[in-house]
């Protein structure tokens, strides 16, 4: 019964995402924007950056800015440049609505599940830069489990661009880190912790990631799988996710499915 309900829910999300895709296609050419509920623990300035957990920032800002002072919780706000029904670029922001120079057609609020499904489908099929950023748009959607589809995208060497695959792998590594640290799929929780008492181990993990000829990858994988300290495992997973090595997908899959 539970499986049947889940399947029905999944089918409903896919149908909603298809409806959203239809609305995007129907818009033809121009700037589109939409918003949806973001994960708890995510904030931003509504324009240039967002933060997860308060320690890590994504986006663009100049060194004079102090993003932490202007980081406000709020919905995920995505603006897309669409040409003849095809999404070319995706810009992700979180927080308050802000005015933009370029006017946009507002598609309004969509459900986070609908948004995540739409953006994952976009990432899985787009060869444009937008595919890379669509990954991020999907990841910050509230109450949606995305890592399995991210894993599939990371493995899809036939159709998906390498930049999109790398971004998918990065976020998969964050989900794997959340799991080994006991936070389930709450990747904002790992971002808020920076209390490793033994910095040398963290530095050593980084040093392994920087070794010539990827000599350090095998030890990193072993550390990610077996180290007794979840923080250290998390550091190793982060650098495995950054490695771009084909072995990374298998390791992360094993941890997430294990």
């Amino acid at each position, binding site marked *: 019964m539970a499986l049947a309900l889940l399947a029905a829910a999944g089918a409903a999300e896919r149908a909603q995402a298809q409806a959203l895709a239809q609305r995007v296609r129907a818009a033809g050419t121009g700037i589109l924007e939409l918003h949806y509920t973001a994960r708890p623990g995510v904030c931003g300035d509504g324009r240039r950056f967002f933060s997860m957990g308060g320690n890590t920032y994504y986006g663009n800002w100049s060194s004079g800015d102090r993003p932490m002072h202007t980081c406000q919780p709020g919905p995920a706000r995505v603006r897309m440049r669409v040409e003849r029904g095809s999404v070319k670029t995706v810009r992700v922001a979180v927080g308050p609505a802000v005015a933009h120079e370029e006017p946009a057609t507002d598609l309004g609020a969509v459900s986070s599940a609908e948004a995540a499904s739409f953006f994952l489908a976009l990432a899985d099929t787009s060869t444009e830069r937008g595919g890379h950023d669509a990954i991020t748009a999907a990841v910050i959607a509230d109450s949606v489990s995305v890592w399995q589809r991210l894993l599939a995208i990371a493995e899809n060497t036939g159709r998906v661009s390498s930049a999109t695959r790398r971004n998918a792998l990065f976020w998969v590594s964050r989900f794997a880190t959340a799991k080994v640290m006991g936070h389930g799929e709450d990747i904002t929780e790992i971002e808020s912790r920076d209390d490793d008492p033994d910095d040398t181990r963290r*530095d050593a993990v980084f040093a392994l990631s920087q*070794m*010539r*000829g990827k000599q350090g990858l095998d*030890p990193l994988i072993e550390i990610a799988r077996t180290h007794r300290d979840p923080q*250290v495992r998390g550091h190793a997973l982060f650098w495995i996710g950054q490695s771009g090595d084909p072995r990374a997908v298998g390791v992360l899959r094993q941890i997430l499915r294990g």
Partner: protein
Amino acid sequence: MSHTRLASLALALTLAPALGAQPGTSIARRVAAAPDGEVRLTYATRPDVCGDGRDGVSIRRSMFFSDRVESYGTVSGMRCIDGPARVTITVRDRKVTGVRTRVGGSWASGAGDVTDLGPVSAPEAAAYFISLVPQLEGTSRHNPMLAAAVADSANVAPEMLRLARTTSLSRDTRRRAVHWAGALGDASMVAPITELARASGGDRTSADDPGPGDGLEGAAAGALAMIPDDAGVPALMTLARTGSPSVRKAAVFWLGQRDDERSRAVVRTVAGDERETDAVRRAAIFALSQGDRDSPADFAFLRSLFDGESSDKLKEQVLFSVSQRESSDGTRWLLDKARDERQPMEVRRKAVFWAGQGHASVADISALYASARDERLKEHIIFVLSQQREEAATTKLISIAKEDPDREMRKKALFWLAQKDDPRITKLITDLVVR
């Protein structure tokens, strides 16, 4: 001269009158008549020529390897024996496409498509190869000038000078030609080569390059230094003070190659002349590092120059020049400068870098690390240690990575250790994580 060479020469001289009135034309005719492939010929070499039978050829103070690597100085590491020139001419579609010069040794047997002209007159061979220069330039890395230069009883210097003056030829060809004009010439070459240096100054040198540059004037200055009996040295000294900036740079470079005190005194004067441009002064300071012997006078001068100098660039050049000294006094001085808190940090960092690149031991550098208080200096010392090949340097880095009380230093040491291609380092770093 060996019996073989005497015999070759005698035969060549005997044949020479019968091979045509225009020097080299009979060889040219015979080569033109040869089918595609290799044409071989042999002729007597100058008394000051030797070779290894393969691609190493030495003439006076010039050495050539595969006609691509040139070196000036004394022969070392090459078994150099007297012998006739054995030159291979490559012919394609009835045209000469390459010339390869060997001295001594013997021909490989059994090669196909070979036309052997046998022994020929050395002067005629020289004339022939000189005539090939314009038609071969840019098409072959094997320059016929070397084949001409080794020929016995041929005064090729005037012809080389003519080639060096020929503006339609490439810079590279002209540079080679002026070299030979000096190296094979005599005092009569001083004035025309000096004139060539003055006329060609300023075209190709970079202010950041303290060497002689790759312009014609640099080659001309080098050619003056090559003229036998030091006949070109007075002109070189004059050029060091009165030529264009690029000529002055080249002149001090070539004077710095010499070990005589008069030449070095001129270089020191240029280096210390505050009216001179920084680029030329840097070239002079660099030149003081280029002699074969450690000169106490140079070292004293460099120390004094450093102490009175305000330009960081010139100071850095002094640090480099001192680092090239073989004796330990230079290393000690560099380490003192690295410790000297009155010096700007960048100068101190450069001092330790050049100490490491020079002759400082790992123990010296480690002691400096132990006494250093400034983080920027300590970071740099870690980098300098990472550039040392000795096992002791790796051991020291490991010790810093594991035990230094400063986390930033541990991190730097780990980073540089990770750059070493060494499985032991992988294990060490892994152990740090899993301990």
